[in-house]
């Protein structure tokens, strides 16, 4: 399946402009930043001098779960609901161009969101490269999985029914890891947990085994997401 760069660029531009015009999606990507500002002002309870760490992790968590899941799936399901996806397909836009545009749009937004979160949290710029690598890698598998949710949804309503459990599945284990061994174990295998592990390792001191383990988890998620995407796309690609 060939990709036309002209079409991809046109789709991407439109998606970015539409994102700015859609309050529900635009607000979702502001939420991590607003939370960071909020906690910065009221103080982080039990932070014990690790306020910056907490704020950075919190922003990363919300961006990689809430934003990365909501944005592509909601926009794809809206296009299905309003029949604009069909119009695009009938205008000789292929599926790869369409989904790549959504994925790139979300990657851009979550990348910028993470960057602003990093600045707002007041983290040391020495950590920035590690932060960018780990968030880009971590978010990529969640974004592709979110595209799968978009394919499976008939409309925005059914999309939110699928989004919420997935968000909770990815959010709860890392948030409550200290409360139980099971949640602690699950926290290591959800994308955010693996992303956090990778970030900690990349910023030093590095331990090869832990880096490999984190990369392995994220790679498995990415491969599973891509396979699911290809499978469901083939299944839902035509009306029969």
């Amino acid at each position, binding site marked *: 399946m*060939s990709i036309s760069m*002209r*079409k991809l660029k*046109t*789709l991407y531009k*439109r998606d970015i402009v*539409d994102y700015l*015009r*859609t309050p529900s999606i635009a607000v979702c990507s502001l939420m991590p930043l607003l939370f960071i500002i909020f906690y910065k002002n009221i103080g982080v309870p039990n932070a014990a001098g690790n306020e910056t760490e907490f704020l950075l992790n919190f922003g990363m968590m919300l961006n990689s779960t809430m934003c990365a899941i909501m944005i592509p799936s909601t926009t794809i399901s809206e296009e299905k609901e*309003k*029949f*604009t996806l*069909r*119009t*695009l*397909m*009938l*205008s*000789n*836009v*292929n599926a790869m161009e369409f989904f790549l545009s959504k994925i790139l749009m979300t990657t851009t937004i979550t990348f910028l969101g993470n960057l602003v979160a990093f600045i707002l949290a007041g983290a040391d710029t020495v950590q920035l490269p590690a932060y960018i690598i780990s968030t880009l890698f971590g978010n990529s598998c969640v974004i592709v999985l979110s595209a799968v949710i978009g394919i499976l949804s008939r409309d925005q309503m059914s999309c939110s029914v699928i989004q919420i459990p997935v968000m909770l599945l990815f959010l709860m284990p890392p948030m409550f890891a200290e409360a139980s061994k099971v949640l602690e174990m699950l926290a290591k295998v959800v994308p955010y947990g693996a992303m956090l592990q990778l970030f900690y390792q990349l910023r030093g001191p590095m331990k090869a085994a832990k880096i490999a383990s984190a990369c392995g988890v994220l790679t498995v998620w990415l491969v599973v997401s891509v396979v699911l995407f290809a499978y469901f796309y083939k299944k839902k690609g*035509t*009306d*029969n």
Partner: protein
Amino acid sequence: MKEMIYLNEVCLDFGTSFSLDHLTFQVMPGEIFGFLGPSGAGKTTTMKLLTKQLHKKSGSIRILGKDIEKAERSDYDKIGILTDTNGLYERMSIESNLKFFAELKGIKEEDVTDVLRKVRLYDDRKTILKKCSKGMRQRALLAAAVLHRPELLFLDEPTSGLDPATIQEIHKMLLDMNQNGTTIFLTTHNMEEADKLCGRICILNQGKIIASGSPEQLKLQFAQDKIEVMTTEKEKIVLTKGPESAEFIGRLLSADKCLTIHSIEPNLEEIFLQLTGREF
């Protein structure tokens, strides 16, 4: 001359009581070809097969002279499609929508202005789509489908639910496009529309083609053996063709009492009723 559309023994089965059953027809370049039938006959299903939204079970389909499965992407750049499940972006204006599709298709901005004028939406081009009437949306969708001056245009009930004035505008536009070389494949359950626009039609019922030909050919084929005469006293007399009727008409003409003489030809809806025993 290669056919623009060629179907041979095409079957499709949804597991319902009827399906597309050995459809065979072709559409030649420069034609406006009508695909008629009541709701549920299989018109939209056929359209979806031709535009690759559905896969056939058996038979062969060629579009622009190429097997549909082997058609390249560049072939689909020559095709415009308007179905009843097309949509445009509601948060964008008519003009922005068309500029977006123009950019996708590699069309210049000047062509967008041209098409907006043709569909009579130039004055409303800045209107956000969600504030547009149904007629305006349909014209905007048609504009998006014809921006790139396609060689082959698929239209699935393009005037369904529109007012007569809008329908007339769309008909004029389609006839102009056809005069400029666009082949049009049109599905409709509006017999008058088919009669007005189409050079050839197929009538579909329960997945099968039950009649095909030009509207005039079909009317003559199913014409009754009757003549209707209106006298100067506004009296309508129906006569069976024959020497006695000829003599009677001759007497009326001699006495200058004959106002009009017409052969009685059925319209397409009556033809359908004759063929199927049911109404549209």
